[in-house]
């Protein structure tokens, strides 16, 4: 049985922790991803988004002095953004419900809690690829439809299944 072919996918990993960036890139390499880029903060990440046009961004929330939410808002709302529809996974140790809602309201596509496992990351990538939700512009929000409840919608809560740890 075969699975997703990630070979042609370009992924940007933004995290201020070097060990975490290395770990995520190793997992992606194992999944078959060939092109990966990394950034240590939101400004550097946005630069790479404009220069390299990745297919998906995996970003940490807290990256002092910058913030993953700022990166999400910039990708979604900046007039110069090369791809406001870019799929974004927020990967963070902040798992409280109000944080998940904050990330969703900034326009993230999916949320993944740290600590992560290879299995949880694989599943999240698959659901993001399958995500069929339209984007919505309303007030100051632009991002994946927060009201959509389609089967393919990525789960926004915290993974608590034992095998995801």
């Amino acid at each position, binding site marked *: 049985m075969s699975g997703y*072919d990630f070979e042609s996918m370009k992924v940007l990993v933004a995290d201020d922790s070097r060990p975490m960036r290395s770990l995520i890139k190793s997992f992606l390499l194992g999944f078959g991803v060939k092109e990966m880029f990394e950034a240590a903060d939101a400004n550097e990440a946005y630069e790479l988004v404009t220069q390299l046009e990745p297919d998906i961004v995996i970003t940490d929330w807290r990256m002092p002095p910058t913030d993953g939410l700022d990166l999400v808002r910039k990708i979604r709302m900046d007039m110069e953004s090369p791809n406001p529809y870019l799929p974004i996974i927020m990967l*963070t140790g902040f798992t409280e419900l109000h944080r998940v809602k904050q990330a969703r309201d900034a326009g993230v596509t999916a949320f993944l809690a*740290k*600590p992560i496992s*290879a299995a949880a990351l694989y599943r999240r990538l698959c659901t993001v690829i399958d995500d069929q939700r339209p984007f919505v512009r309303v007030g100051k929000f632009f991002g994946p439809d927060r009201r959509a409840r389609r089967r393919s919608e990525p789960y926004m809560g915290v993974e608590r299944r034992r095998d995801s*740890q």
Partner: protein
Amino acid sequence: MADKAQKFQPPHPLTRKIRKTGGPSPEQAILRALNAAEDLIDNYQGWAVDDLTALWKAYEESRNGGSPRQIQKMFEIAHAIRGEGGSFGFQLISTIGDSLCKFLEGRKKLAGAESEVVKVHILAMRAVFKQDLKGPQPAMERELRQLLALLRERMG
């Protein structure tokens, strides 16, 4: 009156670029990912020592009450540790880091014996590394979580 929502279909959805077949099976992909990360996971303790050293230094500096900035620094380190520990196989480190984050978040100073709560968390993390308590430890994790919650409640 509320703004009217406008809907847009993403012009280049990933489903057009990424094929659902042709790659390794999910089991193979995950196994390859674990193999690719094996060396990193083995080296994690070396990196974690730096975090623990920085946390201990911040704790010592804040023993006389600490400033909001020092406490924020400790929170930042504890937040990094809770994300990294379990990701590199030390679930108990994430449990302790999470408890320390809960204790420190929003705190402006450490009064009286409150700094000792920080010390207990750091010593607990050191013990986990010293005993090499890797992998799932559900019973111990549950007990540790309860004990640390009790400590925070009594001392916080």
